[in-house]
């Protein structure tokens, strides 16, 4: 009898603990339903409709997707620009942040000052960064063309107005954004965690700087590289708007119109809510598959200590 009572008490306590836990979680659960989970499902449904927010929405099955994938649509260009921008900005920001972190691991006095300078651009607003680069990239009065002139190239290009140069120019600006700074700090911290003994053992065996880098540093921090790869990719999809919009507004023409700008245009410039949702659905599928792919790859290539 007494034991049964204890057991009931214990179960009661467990139930109460569960209720308490979910009570604490409830703000986020409501927020998830209203602001992320719900909207994702709503986006799928809206993508099957035609709606300008004035007349009633009309159900058109896959009409938006058929329009999107048709030969004359600018979707293929948007997809191409998005993929090129994503791939190369990820490579550039990942490499640059790693390089900065390596520099910060020099055993020198005053390295903290350099850490401040390297990270400072990361906290500045992308709008101000965009203004600065509009001036720096300017064909007539920009410093970049002046530097080219000093090296003997007198007719510098119009960086942000050239179809072929605009994407590389934007990617260069990405080296100054928050994500790059964040990855630099993460790399910096992880490089300091590589056990010194490993390097010393290698030095005794006569390994060169590059051998040490390849056989010790890279394998040891490979989980961090993967983590930063995920951050960089997500951000190339997510944060690209706040740098590309103030810098080029997607121009010249559609040359820098990535998918997040296209969603903004169809949704809030022309109020084609259905078509914008169809684009958002495509973006969601791309991000989900990239994330899945990266985690699959991680099992193959990343070295974990345990």
């Amino acid at each position, binding site marked *: 009898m007494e034991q049964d009572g204890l057991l009931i008490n214990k179960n009661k306590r467990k139930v109460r603990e569960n209720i*308490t836990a979910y009570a604490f979680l409830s703000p986020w659960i409501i927020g998830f339903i209203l602001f992320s989970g719900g909207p994702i499902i709503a986006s799928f449904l809206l993508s099957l409709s035609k709606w300008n927010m004035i007349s009633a929405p009309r159900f058109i099955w896959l009409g938006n997707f058929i329009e999107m994938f048709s030969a004359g649509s600018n979707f293929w260009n948007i997809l191409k620009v998005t993929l090129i921008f994503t791939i190369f900005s990820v490579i550039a920001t990942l490499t640059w942040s790693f390089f900065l972190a390596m520099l910060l691991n020099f055993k020198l006095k005053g390295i903290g000052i350099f850490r401040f300078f390297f990270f400072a651009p990361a906290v500045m607003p992308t709008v101000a960064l965009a203004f600065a680069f509009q001036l720096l990239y300017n064909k007539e009065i920009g410093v970049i063309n002046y530097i080219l002139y000093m090296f003997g190239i007198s007719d510098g290009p119009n960086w942000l107005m050239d179809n072929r140069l605009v994407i590389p120019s934007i990617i260069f600006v990405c080296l100054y954004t928050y994500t790059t700074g964040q990855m630099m700090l993460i790399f910096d911290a992880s490089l300091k965690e590589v056990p010194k003994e490993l390097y010393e053992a290698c030095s005794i065996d006569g390994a060169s700087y590059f051998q040490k880098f390849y056989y010790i540093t890279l394998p040891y921090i490979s989980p961090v590289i993967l983590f930063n790869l995920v951050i960089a990719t997500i951000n190339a999809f*997510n944060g690209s708007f706040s740098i590309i919009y103030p810098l080029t507004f997607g121009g010249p023409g559609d040359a820098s119109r990535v998918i997040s700008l296209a969603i903004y245009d169809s949704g809030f410039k022309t109020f084609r809510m259905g078509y914008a949702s169809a684009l958002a659905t495509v973006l969601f599928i791309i991000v989900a598959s990239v994330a899945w792919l990266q985690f699959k790859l991680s099992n193959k290539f990343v070295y974990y200590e345990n």
Partner: protein
Amino acid sequence: MKLKPKITISLQYLLLISVAIIMIFPILWIASSSLKSLIGISAYPPQLIPKEIHFSNYVDVFTRGNMLVYLKNTLILIIGNTFATLISSSIVAYPLARMNFVGKKFMFSLILVTMMVPATATIIPQYILFSKLRWLNSFLPLIVPACFAFPYNVFLFRQFYRTIPISIDEAALIDGCNRWDIFIKIIVPMSRPVFVIIGLLSSVFWWNELFLPLIYIDSDRLKPLMVGALTTFKTLFIQRWDLQMAMSMLMILPPIILYLFTQKYMAEGIKTTGMKG
């Protein structure tokens, strides 16, 4: 340890200094251009140190644009969002770090996954929701979501709570405290550093944020600084570089000064999201 030769040290410093110049050049250029006249900006060759100093640009930014209105709106967004997210996220993180319940792993993974969903992928239904509520062109769609916890901040709080010994909660439970008492009276006071970190990061984020206010705010008197700056001093035909650079300088100074004085805290917060979960 053997001593490094002087030549290596000099080369390393040289490399560090060159990279530092590349990294802060945009800031230097904004600072220098903000003190030039429009003619000074287009002078050839470009001058890093202006020949004539025009402080008047800064006066013009305040008198000719809506700078003060934009600034006020940005401050409202910062204060509203920061308070709301600190309260909601600190509560949501508590059971994830310090309690055992059914579905804990699932809830935590779901929070991590939502961190990866791009804002642009969910913006259309959110916009429709807020338009149905008649909240468009107000601060509500920008501040109310913060009351429901942001995954990124929940994660930071959780990481910090996990460093506090779990035996504290257990002892308090035996003494008859309930979970809410433990959270308010023990965990919150012990977690002051993480409140400061998230407060700082949230302030910088909302100072810089462009996308959401661009979508939800229409009228000029409600625009925050970043949205207002897009159209001030720039018309179809003329770009007032001098005034735009002075405005940019005012836009970059607050976050950089904040970072300068709270470097340790902010770097810690930014890094934590990168450390093992």
